[in-house]
């Protein structure tokens, strides 16, 4: 019943922020609770101390019996004249005095030594371990203790021994020698111990009940306190005007000005105040924070972009394109129908169950929470990976023959291992009598390649060219976005001096490369040696103007076309570097639009003054850096896109190795069917987890990371400034989630 009640209390909603009166009540309640708890703890400690003392006394009484037997033996020996005693004792009672008590076991050697030295060997220490564990009442840790008894003669020695005991923290207990008296004390002690046990139980229950009532409320108290604290912290940012009003400045999205107004009116009426709260817009030259509206789908992608840098105010938001380009590039690098399907199912599960997971989100550890927040990303990644898998015709390292292969080996006997068959596409015709049907496989790579020895030679070339083409498309898109940014700012200077030369440079070199790729794909070259595209590109610059020779050219007069393109590209470099600084110097007013509309922290428009620091050298250097970055970036970023090929190759190879080494085992050994079946069961149980861990999780993370890098660096350095500040409005939800330090 108790836990059920506790459960009901938790599922109640989040409490609102308390007002003044409630706050005072809460404070009083908490103070009282504190006093009570301290009291109970103190009581418990005192009771425990008493309890342990009694226990120690009981042990002392128990071990006293054993000690006294020894003592009696010593006395008998004395009487037998074996022991000598000092003359000091004279005729006084030869009976040995003793002190008994309890000491920490660790201190016994020290105790012995000190006693020996202090008594000059005339005190005798006997000790016995206490087997029952005794706890320190304050800290509740177990301390091993022993009972001891010290025999000595004379009053002086007694005082010294007592002092030593005190010094070493040993507690002495009075103990009678006579057996009957000891027995009686023991019975009394037992009675008191049982009483104390009952009292301790009572105290423990009382404390438990009291804490139990606290448990029901403590979460809500913490929330209330956090909310009030946040409110006061924010209110501290208000300024007090002369007329006794509080004033604050802040940022509001223009689309929600109305809502804020209504909320203010609502607040005024609920607080019962006479004066209305007034909302005024103020013009300022400060840069506003950036606010992108996002829903549950776009939030993940926006977070990925913001992790690199929040968009500058009113710059085009790359996150919106990322929603499709990111999963697409991921798919190109992942490229397996089977693995993509599993990833898609995982993402789909997270998406379908999102309402249940959102409630449990707080109990997730960091990695699981991150996976949950990225559920739409995972689902889309899986979907696009399936698409790429269909194109690469790769499902768990095997190919699917959906449409009928376009190739047929020209052999009459069954295929044997170790013999190579070459399939020649040059003479094509209807299939059984020709190797190649003349019609390519309708969608994706022909399944025959899965069995081909030279599979990688073909696939590598195809994927590398695909990577360059995709890279060109994304980079061109980036440059085009920069055009739209310039147009929005109204900066025609940038359009003519930055966008156009950048575009021409990019297309003349990398665009021409992509053109050659397509050209080579579409034309069938009857020469025995196929011209290398890369050599063409290199000779475009290194062998400027020289004819390429028949074996090296794709089309007639290629060297003239290439020289023209090279010249155009080279003209763009000084255009990019020098045009803008010189025009700005000659026409200073043109400069204004090309910088941001807003200056940070300056109240009035200082047109000529605050651009003082942008001297001619600064602008030239800035422009030179940008030019070099862009031109070198064209080549290096294009090469960087080759990771699309590299990762998909790695994934395909890993997948193939895993199948060949693991899953092939039952079928390639010559086992009879029952053995084969059992082995299949076990081999699958090994192959499947390995697939998930290595190929899906590890390769998935890798492809995710590289796709993200391609977006952050190769795509965004064409247009993105990312110098903005995120718009973070006051929000109880964020504060309670611990996202904000207050």
């Amino acid at each position, binding site marked *: 019943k108790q*836990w*059920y009640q*506790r*459960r009901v209390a*938790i599922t109640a909603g989040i409490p609102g922020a308390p007002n003044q009166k409630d706050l005072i009540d809460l404070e009083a309640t908490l103070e009282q609770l504190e006093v009570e708890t301290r009291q109970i703890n103190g009581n418990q400690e005192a009771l425990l101390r008493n309890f342990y003392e009694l226990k120690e006394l009981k042990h002392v009484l128990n071990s006293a019996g054993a000690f006294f037997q020894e003592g009696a033996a010593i006395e008998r020996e004395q009487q037998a004249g074996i022991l000598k005693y000092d003359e000091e004792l004279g005729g006084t009672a030869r009976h040995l005095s003793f002190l008994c008590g309890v000491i920490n076991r660790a201190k016994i050697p020290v105790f012995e030594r000190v006693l020996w030295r202090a008594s000059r060997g005339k005190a005798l220490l006997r000790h016995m371990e206490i087997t029952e564990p005794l706890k320190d009442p304050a800290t509740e840790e177990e301390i091993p203790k022993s009972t001891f008894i010290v025999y000595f003669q004379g009053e002086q020695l007694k005082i010294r021994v007592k002092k030593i005991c005190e010094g070493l923290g040993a507690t002495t207990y009075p103990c009678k020698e006579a057996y009957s008296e000891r027995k009686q004390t023991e019975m009394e002690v037992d009675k008191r111990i049982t009483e104390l046990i009952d009292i301790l139980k009572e105290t423990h229950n009382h404390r438990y009940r009291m804490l139990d009532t606290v*448990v029901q409320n*403590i*979460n809500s108290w*913490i*929330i209330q306190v956090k909310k009030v604290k946040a409110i006061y912290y924010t209110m501290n940012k208000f300024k007090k005007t002369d007329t006794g009003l509080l004033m604050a400045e802040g940022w509001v999205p223009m689309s929600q000005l109305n809502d804020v107004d209504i909320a203010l009116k609502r607040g005024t009426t609920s607080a019962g105040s006479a004066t209305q709260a007034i909302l005024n817009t103020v013009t300022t030259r400060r840069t506003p924070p950036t606010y992108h509206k996002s829903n549950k789908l776009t939030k993940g992608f926006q977070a990925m972009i913001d992790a690199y840098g929040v968009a500058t105010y009113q710059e085009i938001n790359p996150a919106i394109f990322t929603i499709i380009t990111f999963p697409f590039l991921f798919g190109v690098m992942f490229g397996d129908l089977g693995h993509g399907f*599993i990833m898609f199912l995982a993402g789909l599960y997270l998406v379908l169950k999102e309402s249940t997971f959102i409630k449990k989100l*707080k*109990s997730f550890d960091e990695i699981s929470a991150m996976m949950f927040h990225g559920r739409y990303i995972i689902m889309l990644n899986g979907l696009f990976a399936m698409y790429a898998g269909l194109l690469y015709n790769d499902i768990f390292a*095997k*190919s699917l*023959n959906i449409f009928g292969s376009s190739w047929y080996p020209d052999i009459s006997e*069954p*295929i*044997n*291992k*170790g013999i190579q068959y070459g399939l020649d596409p040059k003479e094509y015709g209807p299939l059984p009598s020709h190797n190649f049907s003349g019609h390519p496989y309708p969608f994706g790579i022909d*399944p025959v390649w*899965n*069995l081909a020895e030279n599979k990688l030679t073909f696939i590598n070339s195809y994927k590398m060219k695909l990577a360059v083409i995709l890279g060109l498309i994304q980079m061109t898109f980036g440059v085009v976005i920069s055009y739209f940014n310039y147009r929005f700012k109204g900066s025609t200077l940038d359009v003519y001096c930055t966008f156009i030369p950048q575009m021409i440079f990019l297309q003349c070199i990398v665009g021409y490369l992509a053109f050659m790729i397509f050209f080579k794909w579409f034309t069938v070259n009857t020469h025995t040696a196929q011209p290398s595209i890369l050599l063409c590109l290199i000779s475009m610059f290194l062998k400027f103007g020289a004819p390429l020779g028949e074996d090296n050219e794709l089309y007639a007069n290629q060297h003239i076309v290439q020289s023209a393109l090279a010249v155009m590209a080279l003209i763009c470099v000084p255009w990019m570097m020098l045009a803008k600084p010189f025009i700005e110097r000659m026409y200073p007013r043109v400069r204004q639009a090309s910088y941001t509309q807003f200056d940070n922290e300056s109240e009035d428009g200082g047109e000529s003054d605050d651009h003082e620091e942008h001297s001619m050298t600064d602008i030239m250097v800035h422009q030179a850096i940008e030019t070099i970055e862009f031109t070198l970036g064209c080549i290096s970023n294009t090469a960087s896109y080759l990771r699309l090929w590299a990762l998909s190759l790695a994934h395909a190879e890993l997948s193939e190795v895993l199948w060949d080494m693991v*899953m*092939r085992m*039952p*079928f*390639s050994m010559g086992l*009879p*069917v*029952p053995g*084969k*079946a*059992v*082995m*299949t*069961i076990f081999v*699958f*149980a090994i192959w*499947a*987890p390995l697939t998930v861990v290595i190929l899906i999780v590890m390769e998935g993370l890798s492809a995710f990371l590289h796709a993200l890098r391609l977006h952050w660096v190769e795509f965004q350095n064409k247009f993105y400034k990312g110098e903005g500040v995120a718009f973070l409005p006051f929000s109880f939800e964020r504060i*309670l989630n611990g996202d904000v330090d207050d």
Partner: protein
Amino acid sequence: KQWYQRRVAITAGGPKSSTCLVLLSAWGTVMLLLLGIFFHIKSVILLEDLDYDQNLYDSAATSCFIAGGAYLVIGLISFWQKILNDRYQALEPETTTIMF
């Protein structure tokens, strides 16, 4: 207390392992079934797996179907275990988490 003791006796694993086993068995059933069908229709892609011996197609197909059936059985058993685990988990009291 009685049902608690009973729970320890009946379910072989906890909630996580029974879920894992259910998923693995589902995957195994579907995939081995399909693999069996592909072996049965003597798909050329799988020739490499049979060490280029074409006579092994049928035995491979049969063993795949048997393995698939075995995974189906394992899947049903672990699904039943999962249902039991869920039932017992629902009865256990929730502990308070204090949010700091």
